[in-house]
């Protein structure tokens, strides 16, 4: 029944929305003020697409009846990921994890490698994992994804429950979710992330009831429920498959890149090297022939390990010939010297260089070929060892700081299925101050944009159209910062300058705009079934500087390799007074809006502006200010104080 009404409102939203936007483009633009008219209509079109993607999401809302009985012999590893969190917090979570009823092993994945935590783990019989020796200093660590990938190599459970250090699980979390894996194609079961340290008013917008509700349930309907990093169960086999496919893809890519570069490298070497030496020239001929052959073999689809092994053997043989020639020349010199004055050579006659010494001198690290750096670089890259990473197989995606979304998308791309189980089975801690909250939101947004730019879901192989659009929908919402700026600018421009981006505020406008707005709000009400969505709407607009910064930094990172300025979200409250400086852009915009409203009213009173336009724009300003007002509460928020049963919780 809910589904019927939801779908009806979706259809109405799309119809009224298209009707409005079509009219806006076709008949309403004020071309005299194109510099604001065009941006505004583009922003409105952006918002309509956003709403349509939301409508598409909830169209297939899937309400699951619970999982079947899980197989008793399913083996599970519970991973608690930590970097620098409070030891008490980690231990509380780990002990709760230990009490999960289905048989399992509990592991603390300590990226901080803290001896105290190791001791605590041993004392309580908990598994403890830190990065292996393979993760040397010069290799990328990949943050949480690296932490999990490392742990996957030393554990062996069929399923993995992943918990952030603050997410205290219920004892029945596995009993309620493992049964979904009876379907052999299911690779992921995600449960909601809920925070126990958030007051009813949720001043920092920590709870995400719309996301961990209709949005995930809708994505579930499209077989596109996301992995959200914590409170999720994953099938190891699927992750490993992902890692292997990624390994092959990366290896082939780097081998092809090396082969493509080899010709230029050899040409360069011929120019720079001791070209007069026929021996060097012969070795280069051999390297060239070997790489050309390798290219043919790679193109023919021969196994990469064979191809690279053959190149290595052929080049090694050539190098050995070179070394032997050097040694032979040296030996001849020695004999001549001996012939000149025997006494100087020593009692045992002319020394002879042993065969194993020749072998050693031919080995990679001492090879004369090392002198030709460009050639050596090509040969070094012609390997299947993936020596630029700590471990060749990286099951969790490392292309983004939100490894969870990237990993889920790759799983879906390989045909795996996912499940969203809509029941709170773990209780976490949300940031308790605006600075931490902003860092966290920035990181999520940056990660999402990284995935969009690196592996755009619209063009990924293997994804169904619905899945593509589900991933794209989430990415699309993070572009809202740019639209917000235009939504703030338009009323300011009208109220200060009297410039209207639409040709006239007439009956034509209201008859199209108002039905769309009404049905749009109705959609959120029906799809949300009474859950509070207003906080989320406020933050999606009010955090516009964060969203814009996320887009620009992620683009710079992906396209120009600049660092993101990445920070781990601190779980403990940041100290200090109210941090107004964090919302400087929003304060400036709010002041501008307020000033514009006052000026607009004065202009109206003095007959410079018309009543209808002023009214519409003042209402718009008031709406914007109400939206923005949440930030005042956020900055003043002093952290969670439990209202009742104060003995129940410990405040750190």
């Amino acid at each position, binding site marked *: 029944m809910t589904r019927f009404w939801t779908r009806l409102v979706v259809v109405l939203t799309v119809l009224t929305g298209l009707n409005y936007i079509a009219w806006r483009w076709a008949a309403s633009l004020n071309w005299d003020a194109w510099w604001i008219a065009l941006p505004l209509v583009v922003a409105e079109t952006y918002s309509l697409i956003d709403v349509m993607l939301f409508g598409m999401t909830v169209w297939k809302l899937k309400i699951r009846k619970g999982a079947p009985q899980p197989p008793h012999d399913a083996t599970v590893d519970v991973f608690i990921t930590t970097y620098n969190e409070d030891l008490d917090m980690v231990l509380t979570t780990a002990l709760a994890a230990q009490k999960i009823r289905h048989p399992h092993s509990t592991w603390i994945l300590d990226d901080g490698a803290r001896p105290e935590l190791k001791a605590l783990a041993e004392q309580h019989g908990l598994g403890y994992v830190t990065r292996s020796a393979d993760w040397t200093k010069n290799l990328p660590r990949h943050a949480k994804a690296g932490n999990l990938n490392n742990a996957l190599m030393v554990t062996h459970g069929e399923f993995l429950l992943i918990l952030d250090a603050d997410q205290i699980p219920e004892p029945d979390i596995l009993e309620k979710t493992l049964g979904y894996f009876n379907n052999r194609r299911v690779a992921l079961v995600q449960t909601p992330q809920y925070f126990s340290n958030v007051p009813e008013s949720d001043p920092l917008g920590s709870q995400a009831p719309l996301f961990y509700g209709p949005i995930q349930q809708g994505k579930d309907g499209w077989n596109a429920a996301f992995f959200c990093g914590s409170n999720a169960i994953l099938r190891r086999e699927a992750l490993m498959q992902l890692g292997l496919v990624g390994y092959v893809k990366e290896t082939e890519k780097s081998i092809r890149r090396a082969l493509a570069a080899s010709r230029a490298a050899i040409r360069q070497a011929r120019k720079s090297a001791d070209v007069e030496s026929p021996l060097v020239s012969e070795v280069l001929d051999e390297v060239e022939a070997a790489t050309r052959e390798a290219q043919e073999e790679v193109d023919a689809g021969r196994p990469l390990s064979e191809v690279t092994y053959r190149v290595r053997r052929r080049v090694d043989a050539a190098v050995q010939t070179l070394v032997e020639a050097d*040694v032979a*020349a*040296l030996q001849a*010199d*020695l004999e001549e*010297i001996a012939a000149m004055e025997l006494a100087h050579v020593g009692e045992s006659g002319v020394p002879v260089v042993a065969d194993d010494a020749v072998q050693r001198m*031919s080995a990679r690290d*001492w090879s004369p070929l090392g*002198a*030709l750096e460009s050639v050596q670089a090509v040969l070094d890259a012609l390997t299947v060892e993936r020596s630029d990473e700590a471990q060749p197989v990286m099951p969790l995606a490392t292309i983004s700081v939100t490894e969870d979304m990237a990993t889920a998308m790759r799983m879906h791309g390989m045909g795996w299925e996912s499940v969203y189980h809509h029941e709170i089975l773990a209780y976490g801690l949300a940031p308790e101050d605006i600075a931490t909250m902003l860092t966290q939101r920035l990181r999520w947004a940056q990660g999402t944009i990284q995935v969009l730019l690196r592996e755009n879901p619209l063009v990924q192989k293997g994804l169904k159209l619905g899945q593509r659009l589900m991933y794209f929908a989430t990415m699309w919402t993070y572009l809202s910062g740019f639209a917000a700026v235009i939504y703030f600018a338009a009323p300011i421009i009208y109220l200060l300058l009297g410039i209207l981006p639409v040709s006239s505020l007439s009956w034509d406008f209201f008859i199209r705009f108002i039905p769309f707005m009404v049905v749009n709000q109705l959609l959120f009400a029906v799809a949300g079934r009474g859950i509070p969505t207003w906080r989320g709407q406020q933050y999606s607009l009010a955090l516009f500087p964060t969203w814009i910064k996320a887009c620009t930094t992620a683009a710079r990172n992906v396209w120009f390799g600049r660092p993101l300025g990445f920070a781990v979200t601190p779980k403990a409250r940041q100290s200090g007074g109210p941090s107004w400086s964090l919302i400087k852009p929003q304060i400036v915009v709010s002041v501008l809006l307020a000033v514009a409203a006052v000026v607009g009213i004065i202009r109206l009173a003095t007959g410079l502006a018309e009543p209808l336009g002023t009214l519409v724009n003042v209402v718009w300003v008031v709406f914007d200010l109400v939206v923005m007002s949440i930030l005042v509460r956020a900055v003043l928020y002093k952290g969670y104080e439990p209202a009742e049963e104060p003995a129940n919780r410990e405040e750190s």
Partner: protein
Amino acid sequence: MEFSYEVKDSYAEVKADGRLNMVSAPKLREFVTDVIAGGSNRIVVNLEHTAFMDSSGLGALIGCLKAARQAGGDLRIAAVQPQVDMVLKLTSMDKVLTAYPSAEEAFSND
């Protein structure tokens, strides 16, 4: 690779800074041959700043020894670094070329 030389009282000191490998070895040979042609037949190759040597480098060194001997002098090496020392020992060239601690000491006994 950078080569330089300085004529001292009883010998000429040749410095070979960098990696003595397939690319730079022929240049060492050429350089030392020039020094010998310039009138010095007692040569010390100071390897203090030679971090690496391969078979070509070793060959060049022996080639230079031969040239020095042919000119009636000698070639000695000094201040050998660990990798070069390993190469010399491995090939038993340490029996031919004694590695002196410093350039000053190389010809101090004669």
